[in-house]
């Protein structure tokens, strides 16, 4: 295969993949009779053109960071965890149970407890496929897919038959208590000043009580936890023994055994961490945004984690950037659906194309790039 300089492999391959996905999307937009440049403009304005837009983009990005990290950790152990979606939904269940268990006095306490709940439930949902892979050799890709469906069915059953309050029609839990509501951007001092509403003459509008009125955005404190998680995962993978063992095991199982690394242990650890990270995503959407557990709460973010991890080259910094990119794509795509004739599903197409180019057609992308680099002599014997 074509060998590229390391920086090109890390930076150019994802960028070219993105470009290719963009070109194809533009052709699709043209084919359905819309204007690609208008679409891009709508997306930029709607996703990054204002603090309000960023309030949505970063909300999505927060979820994607968690699920992207989840896929990344598993990838390093050469495990392909497609179960992020189910693990995130189960994580949501954990959040809901914690939040509904007590009349929480303050959101910080609720947050810590809910994080434990989310991580435990997410990890638990990854544990069975992990165990079957480690002990019985069942292919983790298939079992995690199966567990997505089993998880979805379980959540539906619980929401309809167990957790739904009497008299409520829609399948969802009760609303979480006041003390379990996370501060959103318009609640956080300083940041909220970005979200002041102004009247025509540029004066901040006040409500009846004389307090300023803020625009409501879903982005919340979970973003900071997600950024922290990026750093922690980097630390885990490149600075701890467990990370060293995960990476060694992912590169060569035989060699790992020679080094005394237990395949069962590493498979379990990597998948439990992966599941916990996917589960933690629910802090963002279930606790930070909807305030109750709904059906299909993860809304595909578990799958987007695959695209984010591939685009981010399985590095937490890359995942951080790719998550913001996909946040842009998601928010921008929603704007397209609202303001233009382009259906919101365009973002699913782009997501698929990015996965395709970065994860499956990466050799083709490298070959294209290889045309621009002189072959490097490398010692191979």
């Amino acid at each position, binding site marked *: 295969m074509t060998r590229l300089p390391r920086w090109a492999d890390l930076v150019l391959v994802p960028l070219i993949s993105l470009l290719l996905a963009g070109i194809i999307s533009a052709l699709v937009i043209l084919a359905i009779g819309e204007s690609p440049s208008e679409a891009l403009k709508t997306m930029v304005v709607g996703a990054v053109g204002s603090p309000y837009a960023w309030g949505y983009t970063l909300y999505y990005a927060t979820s994607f960071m968690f699920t992207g990290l989840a896929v990344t950790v598993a990838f390093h152990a050469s495990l392909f965890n497609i179960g992020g979606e189910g693990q995130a939904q189960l994580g949501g269940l954990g959040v809901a149970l914690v939040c509904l268990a007590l009349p929480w006095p303050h959101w910080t306490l609720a947050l810590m407890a809910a994080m434990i709940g989310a991580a435990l439930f997410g990890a638990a949902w990854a544990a069975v496929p992990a165990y079957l892979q480690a002990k019985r050799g069942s292919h983790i890709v298939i079992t995690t897919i199966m567990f997505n469906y089993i998880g979805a069915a379980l959540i539906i059953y619980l929401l309809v038959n167990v957790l739904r309050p009497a008299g409520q029609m829609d399948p969802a839990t009760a609303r979480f208590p006041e003390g379990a509501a996370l501060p959103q951007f318009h609640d956080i001092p300083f940041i909220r000043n970005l979200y002041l509403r102004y009247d025509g003459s540029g004066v901040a509008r006040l409500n009846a009580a004389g307090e300023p009125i803020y625009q409501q955005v879903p982005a919340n404190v979970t973003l900071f936890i997600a950024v922290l998680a990026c750093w922690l995962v980097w*630390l885990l993978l490149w*600075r*701890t*023994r467990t990370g*060293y*063992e995960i*990476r*060694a095991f992912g*590169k*060569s199982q*035989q*060699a790992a*055994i*020679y*080094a*005394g690394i*237990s395949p069962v242990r590493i498979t379990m650890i990597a998948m439990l961490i992966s599941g916990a990270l996917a589960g933690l995503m629910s802090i963002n959407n279930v606790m930070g945004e909807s305030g109750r557990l709904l059906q299909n709460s993860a809304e595909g973010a578990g799958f987007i984690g695959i695209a984010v991890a591939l685009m981010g080259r399985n590095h937490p910094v890359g995942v951080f950037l790719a998550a913001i990119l996909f946040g842009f794509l998601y928010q921008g795509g929603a704007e397209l659906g609202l303001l233009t004739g382009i259906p919101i599903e365009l973002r699913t197409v782009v997501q698929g194309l990015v996965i395709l180019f970065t994860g499956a057609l990466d050799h083709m992308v490298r070959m294209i790039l290889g045309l621009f680099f002189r072959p490097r*002599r*490398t*010692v*191979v*014997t």
Partner: protein
Amino acid sequence: MVADTQAGRQHDAAAPVQAALAIELRGISKAFGSVQANKDISIQVAKGTIHGIIGENGAGKSTLMSILYGFYKADSGQIFINGQPTLIADSQAAIRAGIGMVFQHFKLVQNFSVLENVILGAEDGALLRPSLAKARKVLGDLAREYELDVDPDALIEELSVGHQQRVEILKALYRHADILILDEPTGVLTPDEADHLFRILKGLKEQGKTIILITHKLREIMEITDTVSVMRRGEMTATVKTAGTSPEELAELMVGRKVLLDVAKTPAKPGRTVLEVENLRVRDADGVERLKGISLSIRAGEILGIAGVSGNGQSELLEVLGGIEHGTGTIKINGEVIDLTGKSSDAQSRRARGIAHVPEDRQHLGMIMDFTAWENMCFGYHNDPAYQKNALLMDNDAIRADAEGKIERFDVRPPDCWLPAKSFSGGNQQKIILAREIERNPDLLLVGQPTRGVDIGAIEFIHKRIVELRDAGKAILLVSVELDEIMSLSDRIVVMFDGRIMGERLPEETDERQLGLMMAGVGEGEGA
């Protein structure tokens, strides 16, 4: 055809000068990336002869034959088959030209029957039934003619390695091959099976077939070939009549200089017993017993060499001692019994006991090819407190500093601890592993095939380090398929055959012939 057969029978008399050529290669060159595997190679193979091609690992023998078989395309050069210039674009063309090849790693479908494997790609029509019936008949004929009996309905996975090889030969003959190429055919065979194979090959020669035998074993060349070509580093260095040469001359042609395999070493001064193994047994994943009750001991300050044809249990012995495999029996290190099946039967526990392990397969076991040199320098010892910053984090600076010292002391080239392991040559990869394992100052060092695929310069270095460790009073278990290496390094030699110990010899009181017999399972037993 008649002429071919006559040529074959005449080989014992001085071969006719204008003997018909089955194959002629002219100026074949092939590069993989920046590696020149074949450089301007020309060779002539007479019809009805057995032509040996000998050379070290990586000399380019297999590449050359793969080109002849159409598996690779040569960058330049010409191929003549029976005097006709022939373009061999793919394997199909080679098969049409009457060439059959038995690869080192068999190309068989494990869960197919022998018949299905034989007809694969040589079916007579779109329906299988008639092809299978025809193959059944042809196989019967071939079996009678050449001692090639195999149950046509057996599944490949149920067959022994020797029988699988026969299926490969049958595949070639079923396709009417007149020219048969065998790549390292005896590497996986027991001596009995190898003898049987040679009888088959002689029978094929009698029938006028031309055979090319690729090997790195001098003994086989001397025993069976008519002519031998020597390859070194992608080049053809000589072609000689087997009758007119000697193993010594061939060895020199192979490595390009007189082989200096005498390692300077003083007599051993063995001390206390470090390793005691009693009645050690190992079963593989399929339940086949690979070690059938091994007992041996090694004392401090001595090198015990294990000789044997590969696949006779030496790998399993290393693996169970190194904590990679489970087993039954007793292993004592410094008098303490170690766990062979339970929780602490893993490589980490072995290292904690002072056992270091330089594995046979360095690229798949000994290191992570994508890891940097410094990451590989602590591989297996990454839990060592010296490499930790605190309870949670590793001290990468300490690991790098440590690695740089080892790189210098073991003369690893290039001396760059940030390079990934895959960018080093085989010899330097081996030095990285040796540096890591030897500098732990282990009580017992397990070494498997220390110089396989290593250039001559590094071989001497590696041998010297192993002897130095012995002189420092450590016990060393050396496994090698290279008899010369065993002879020159060991203080005592144990020969393994079929998972058992055939006997023990002192290097100064034995010779290669005697060891060779023991390796072939001809045991005298009185030496143990």
